[in-house]
């Protein structure tokens, strides 16, 4: 149980329309990621679903029944906030217990659930501590614990990993994925980091200025982005865009080619350029190449490639991986 349907949902703050009317279907058990640059309306959309903001128009259905005017408490959703929003004056146990206490759950049953959640999240030893005594990752787990004990019909995550350091972020990402597999509950996850979106999602919703640009699985978005924005946003390093003669030749206003889909050659190729900085990661080498017309192209080559600063080099796109766009930026 945990399907959510947005019908013509829109939101304005005063005269400013943050989210133009949009439709979206989230199926039970899905891991959906809202991704987009900051200010694209993804957090607002999540808050609309949570009930922390009113819709300006439209309707939200949760499990088939209308929840447009329901209070957050009545929607049966749990949320993990960016700042974790733990109650600083309560111990970890009391934090996790809070939603159960609000629901009037029998203390014995509540304790059983808390202990179970603590075990899953490795918090058993910390139940009597205050949030202030925990590390960032532990706080994050408490916030998740507080969400799972309620057995909600869906989890909402609002950029939950942005306050963690890089190593911890990777760990927590795996833990959340793991949790999703174990619980099989719907999760809606907001992030501005397309890597998180690609690695975690069943379904990615790319937002830009309040509009849904594209909805699809990570690979769908990677392989067939519907427009230039999605093409540029999804994938790391970013897709290279080239216009001019090479685009004309392919009947397009501009073409896009991912760094990993370029062939490097020392003596022949479609484009000629000068190697700038090259970053050797061991497994891969990233080359920043300056073409003769002054534009920059990023190349992802194999780790063995050695290229010196200022060296002349030739690049050719792999023809079947070229994305073509029209003047409006839509994929042809």
């Amino acid at each position, binding site marked *: 149980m945990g399907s959510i349907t947005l019908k013509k949902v829109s939101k304005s703050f005063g005269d400013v329309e943050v989210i133009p009317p949009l439709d979206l279907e989230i199926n039970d058990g899905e891991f959906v990621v809202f991704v987009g640059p900051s200010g694209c309306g993804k957090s607002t959309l999540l808050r609309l679903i949570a009930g922390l903001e009113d819709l300006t128009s439209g309707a939200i259905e949760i499990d088939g029944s209308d929840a447009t005017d329901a209070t957050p*408490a009545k929607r049966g959703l*749990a949320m993990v*906030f960016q*700042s974790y929003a733990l*109650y600083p004056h309560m111990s970890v146990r009391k934090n996790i217990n*809070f*939603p159960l206490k*609000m629901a009037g759950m029998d203390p014995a049953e509540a304790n059983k659930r808390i202990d179970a959640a603590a075990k899953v999240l490795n918090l058993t030893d910390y139940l009597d501590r205050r949030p202030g005594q925990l590390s960032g990752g532990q706080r994050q787990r408490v916030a998740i614990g*507080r969400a799972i004990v309620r057995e909600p019909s869906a989890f909402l995550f609002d950029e939950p990993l942005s306050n963690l350091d890089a190593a911890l972020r990777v760990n927590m990402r795996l833990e959340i994925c793991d949790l999703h597999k174990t619980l099989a509950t719907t999760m809606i996850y907001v992030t501005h980091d397309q890597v998180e979106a690609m690695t975690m999602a069943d379904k990615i919703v790319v937002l830009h200025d309040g509009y849904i640009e594209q909805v699809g699985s990570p690979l769908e978005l990677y392989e067939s982005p519907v427009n230039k924005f999605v093409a540029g946003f999804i994938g790391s390093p970013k897709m290279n865009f080239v216009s001019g003669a090479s685009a004309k030749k392919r009947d397009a206003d501009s073409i896009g080619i991912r760094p990993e889909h370029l062939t490097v050659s020392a003596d022949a190729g479609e484009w000629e350029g000068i190697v700038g900085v090259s970053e050797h990661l061991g497994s891969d080498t990233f080359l920043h190449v300056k073409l003769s017309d002054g534009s920059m192209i990023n190349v992802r080559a194999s780790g063995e490639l050695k290229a010196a600063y200022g060296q002349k080099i030739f690049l050719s796109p792999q023809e079947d991986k070229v994305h073509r766009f029209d003047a409006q930026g839509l994929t042809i």
Partner: protein
Amino acid sequence: MARAVTNNRKALNTAIAWSIGLVIFFPILWTILTSFKTEAQAISNPPVFLFFDWTLENYAVVQERSNYMRFLWNSVFIAGGSTILGLIIAVPAAWSMAFVPSRRTKDILLWMLSTKMLPAVGVLYPIYLLFIKMGLLDTRLGLTIVLMLINLPIIIWMLYTYFKEIPGEILEAARMDGASLPKEIIYVLTPMAVPGIASTLLLNFILAWNEAFWTLNLTAAKAAPLTAFIASYSSPEGLFYAKLSAASTMAIAPILIMGWFSQKQLVRGLTFGAVK
């Protein structure tokens, strides 16, 4: 912050600061000392500082003459009652302003503050009449209400500034966790704001304790608090310094002692929550 400072420099600072501190504190110290002197020593020339015959006689006389305990109880009742009543009304209002601000919030806040600028004398007679009509004259209840009203804007303002420091996400988390509004305020907001609420409580208790316009003008014998108790020493008994000092000490001691024990909250409260 930590900068190496020579001990000489520190000693100089200490000497200057302590001297100024003692000068500022001196009137209070002198009053307390005088309260333990005999009347003759209190006006002796030259004045004696510490080496006099300590006596408690003045306190006994003052208590006998004016029944200190009754005034004290009135003060405690009025100051405590008005502060608590004010808090009960102010907490929800401050919640609204801090967490659901609208375009008018700041105007309302400033308007509330501006009601404090209404000169009390301008409305003394009407209030006096209303109090007679309602049978509130010279009652603790009446005074409690008036002091609550005059301090309410300050209580609201202070709570507002403290509440604003609490991240809204935590209250939203409570809402997501299924807390109703009253529960959100009781279980989450209030415990988190305890230091701020304590400061507000202390400061307003002191303001109400020391309020000396309404307490002097709306009470006679029955409900008079310590401000009136001490005003009755203005003349000619004021010339009996030792007794005046004893009475003064008795009037300010409760607050001084309270201040001593809750220095941290008080210092915070004294800034009216306006400066961090």
